[in-house]
């Protein structure tokens, strides 16, 4: 069984159907990219996995979304636990206006953990090491996170997620505000992280999807048109609509 699966998933924003009968399986320890033109439903699909869409008024879903075999769309699903397990990195890094240290331990505190200072220190160190920021920031843990560079902020946001020990990382255009060098470093980080997490990334940047992902799904008008191994999808897509999109002939 995959880490995440959808069965006949449909989603509406009021009368507009944003996801149409999506069936998919996202395997653990792999990076899966979701690509497609603007408005195709890729970010909506990503947000379903930790039920971020619940925050939007008029959303209705049908079908199943299984995370480790549990249907997270059921009313009894524990959203706090779900979001601890399935974390999200956004397009623009959004650290809290707190220190580097406080950003990382924030999740622990919000999840009601009252840990000793030495244990919190350990979490900060491990999380920063996981995102390769420790050496840069170990002497600046009290520095306001808002003063970090964009790339450092994005890494910090990932470290903040890792601190609450999720299984799944959702990334919505995580490099779109970064320059090519910073993008390359975040991509390297993703490759490191996939050994321990299931990573799903939404990206407009097809080269990035091709570079970094193991599997790729192509979405169009709310449908998951094609899903397969990245090297196959980008060299020999099976569906003409996928081919038209990735070769720039779409529309």
């Amino acid at each position, binding site marked *: 069984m995959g880490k995440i699966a959808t069965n006949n998933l449909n989603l509406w924003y009021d009368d507009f159907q944003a996801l149409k009968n999506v069936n998919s399986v996202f395997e653990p320890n792999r990076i899966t990219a979701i690509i497609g033109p603007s408005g195709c439903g890729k970010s909506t699909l990503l947000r379903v996995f930790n039920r971020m869409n619940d925050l939007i008024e008029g959303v209705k879903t049908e079908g199943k979304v299984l995370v480790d075999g549990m249907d997270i769309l059921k009313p009894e699903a524990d959203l706090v636990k779900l979001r601890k397990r399935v974390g999200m990195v956004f397009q623009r890094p959004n650290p809290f206006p707190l220190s580097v240290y406080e950003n990382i331990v924030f999740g622990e505190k919000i999840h009601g953990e009252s840990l000793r200072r030495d244990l919190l220190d350990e979490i900060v160190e491990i999380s920063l090491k996981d995102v390769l920021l420790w050496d840069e920031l170990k002497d600046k843990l009290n520095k306001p996170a808002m003063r970090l560079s964009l790339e450092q902020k994005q890494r910090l946001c990932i470290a903040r997620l890792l601190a609450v020990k999720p299984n799944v990382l959702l990334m919505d255009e995580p490099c779109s505000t970064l320059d090519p060098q910073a993008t390359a470093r975040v991509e390297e980080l993703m490759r490191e992280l996939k050994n321990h997490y299931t990573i799903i990334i939404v990206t407009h940047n*097809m080269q990035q999807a091709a570079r970094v992902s193991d599997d790729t799904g192509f979405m169009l008008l709310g449908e998951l048109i094609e899903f397969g191994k990245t090297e196959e999808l*980008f060299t020999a*897509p099976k569906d003409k609509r996928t*081919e038209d999109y*990735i*070769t*720039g002939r779409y529309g």
Partner: protein
Amino acid sequence: MERHFDLELQELRKDILRMGAFAEEAIYKSVEALKNKDKCLAKSVIDGDSIVDKLELEIDEKCIDLIARYQPMAKDLRFITTGMKINAELERITDIAVDIAQRTLELVDKPLLKPLVDIPKLAAVAQSMVKGAIDAFVKGDSDLARKVMLSDPEADQLRDTIQKELVEDYMVKDGSTAPRAVQLLLITRFLERICDHTTNIAEDVIYMVQAQVVKHHPEKL
């Protein structure tokens, strides 16, 4: 709206077509020179090689440039990478035509060992295969590419017949014919190699069109 990239791909297609035309012509001329003992024609094949060498480098450069600038995907990527491989095969085919022309120059001043019947036949198979493979590439026609590949056994069979005749009817019976017979054996071998290179082109075309690797997998044909 036509993409600028499509125009560049069309240019690349035309260049490879031109390369194919050079290769076809070189095979034709080299065998005509042999049949007609035409020194000038043989020399023109040898002289023409530098044009093909230059064109090969230009096409390679164009392919690398397109990959670097457009980062092509799917069928565009397959077209360009296949174009690079076909370019190399065609250059090799033209080199082999030069080899034939050089052997021809060795034979031109000597009496013909025998009337040439099967060698021109083999040359015709080679030429037709090259033409078919290039057509298949330009039209993106994998059926035609498969048809081209079916001609290769015919070429092998002709080569075997020619070799047997040259060795058994000439070299064994009369050792003095060996120098001329060896040149004809080499030419036969060269023509058969052209057919092998053309088979590679046809395999590449099938990959380009259908994303199916048939090279080293005859069962997939």
